């Protein structure tokens, strides 16, 4: 695994194994303020776990707990290495890549010097540094001091240092905040390739639409506790948010269709030729079948299932009663 990954865009076959992270009922308080309350979560090799939540929800503290930078007040944090790579006997900390929120570097050093410094600390190969800088698009800026870097360049350098030494666990604290759209896409692409190569990825972000397609599981955190977690379908089910169905049809047919589906209670919207109504996830398919059987010409049909941001809003605004 160490030797093969010359280009992260074309990773080698995943040899299996990697680093698993497990938090069991972890709590942490600073003085009287309880920042993390009874959090349990897991992330496994080849999986991307997204931590979502408002600022100050405790995400960064959770990262510090995972990295061993702070000790939990109660509960357990376990990082476990498995698979063929584990027999190398290198400490698990050498296999972690971390990108802190608003990453800061030693301003007077050049990008290349900064990366070489971190590479030495991690015992990563120095020749690999130039390659890494190239990969994150800093090849030409490598000899400039970090002081002259833009936010995007710093973030790229941050990603480069996180990728030093072929990490098996990547912890990324808001990696795409403040980046332009093209750079965000690059970032997510890199993450997707690493995930495919068996890297465990834990990421916190406010960019819900972009993470929706990239993460396997989500944990929504508010005031230090997890208010909901699971895969997108699981969260959708738990939230029980309505599905919106929208039909385009001849104006004269609207009344017939409403009759045909047995009439619907509001919310139902009619606007010359389009009809929009909500139903639950469970009744969705039956309803569509019913519509199809009606002998009414339909120009178009679209179904909008709840997106991650709907689910997030549902769980964080207090709508989620229990």
């Amino acid at each position: 695994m160490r030797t093969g990954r010359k280009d992260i865009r074309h990773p080698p076959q995943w040899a299996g194994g990697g680093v698993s992270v497990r938090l069991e009922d972890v709590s942490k308080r600073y003085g009287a303020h309880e920042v993390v309350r009874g959090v349990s979560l897991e992330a496994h090799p080849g999986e991307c776990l997204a931590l979502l939540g408002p600022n100050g929800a405790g995400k960064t503290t959770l990262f510090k707990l995972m990295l061993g930078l702070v000790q939990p007040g109660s509960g357990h944090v376990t990082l476990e290495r498995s698979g063929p790579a584990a027999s190398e006997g290198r400490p698990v900390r050498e296999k972690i890549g971390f990108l802190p929120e608003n990453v800061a570097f030693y301003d007077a050093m050049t990008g290349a010097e900064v990366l070489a410094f971190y590479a030495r600390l991690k015992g990563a190969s120095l020749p690999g540094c130039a390659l890494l800088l190239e990969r994150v698009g800093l090849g030409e800026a490598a000899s400039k001091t970090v002081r002259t870097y833009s936010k995007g360049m710093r973030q790229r350098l941050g990603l480069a240092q996180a990728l030093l030494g072929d990490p098996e666990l990547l912890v990324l604290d808001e990696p795409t905040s403040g980046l332009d759209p093209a750079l965000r896409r690059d970032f997510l692409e890199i993450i997707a390739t690493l995930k495919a190569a068996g890297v465990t990825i834990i990421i916190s972000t406010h960019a819900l639409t972009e993470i929706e397609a990239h993460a396997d599981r989500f944990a929504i955190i508010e005031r230090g506790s997890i208010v909901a977690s699971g895969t997108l379908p699981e969260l959708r089910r738990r939230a029980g948010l309505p599905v919106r169905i929208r039909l385009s049809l001849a104006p004269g047919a609207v009344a017939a269709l409403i009759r045909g589906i047995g009439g619907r209670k509001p919310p139902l919207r009619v606007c010359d030729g389009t009809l929009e109504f909500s139903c639950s996830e469970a009744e969705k398919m039956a309803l569509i079948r019913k519509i199809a059987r009606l002998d009414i010409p339909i120009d178009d049909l679209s179904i909008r299932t709840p997106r991650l941001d709907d689910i997030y809003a549902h769980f964080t605004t207090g709508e989620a009663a229990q």
Partner: protein
Amino acid sequence: MRALATIAMKEFRDGLRNRWVTAAVLLLAGLALAVTFLGSAPVGTVKATRLAITVVSLASLSGYIVPLIALMLSFNAIVGEVERGTMLLLLSYPISRWQVIGGKFLGHLAILAVAVVIGYGAAGLALVLLADTAGEDVAALLGLMGSSVLLGAVFLMLGYLVSALSRENATAIGLSVGLWLAIVVLYDIALLGILMADTGQAIGEQAFAWLLIVNPVDAFRVFNLTQFANVEAVAGLTGFGKSAVVAPSLAFAAMASWVVAAGLLALARFQWSET
């Protein structure tokens, strides 16, 4: 080992980059040369070589300057990185906190050593070339260099302690200045005051000697003023040189203990803090 060397190297190169090394070398060399060529007027009246006089003068001046340089190098070593936001990333690497402090210590100590060796060495070399030296004086100069670096080590560690205790850079600056004043200036004044008030001679010579070497700067002076006969002759004004209640090795050990104690305290505070 690798982490220690990497951090030490970075600190030293930072020192070169931001001209700290140059400034410290120039300061100490300027001071030493000034003392050597301008301050050795009494040479005609006292039976001492110019190098001996220079060593005594420098020992007295170093007691002020070296702690200052050391504190300026070290006061923001920890709080500065916390404030800039680089500490979080550094600690996420597979290194321990003692390696962070240890690496910084080695790097800063190297900067100090370069400044002392080049700065004081320049003056020594000038005098050796003028041939007005005794072999023992050269040894005294080497002793001054070594003990200056050790004195610097004490204040580097005190600086890290201040840095680990402070939440902001500004606090660390204030604490450093206070510390310097207290140890370098006020302690001696207080000691003098006590001696003057102590008309009944309740404090014996031995107790006084202990009170002296408890302070690292005084220990440094005691070490340099008592180590060599020739220097001692010049430094006779101190009065206790002859009685030699304090062995130079004891003064040296006192300084070394300060390094260890301050270093351990700084490490304990740093270890305990949660960045």
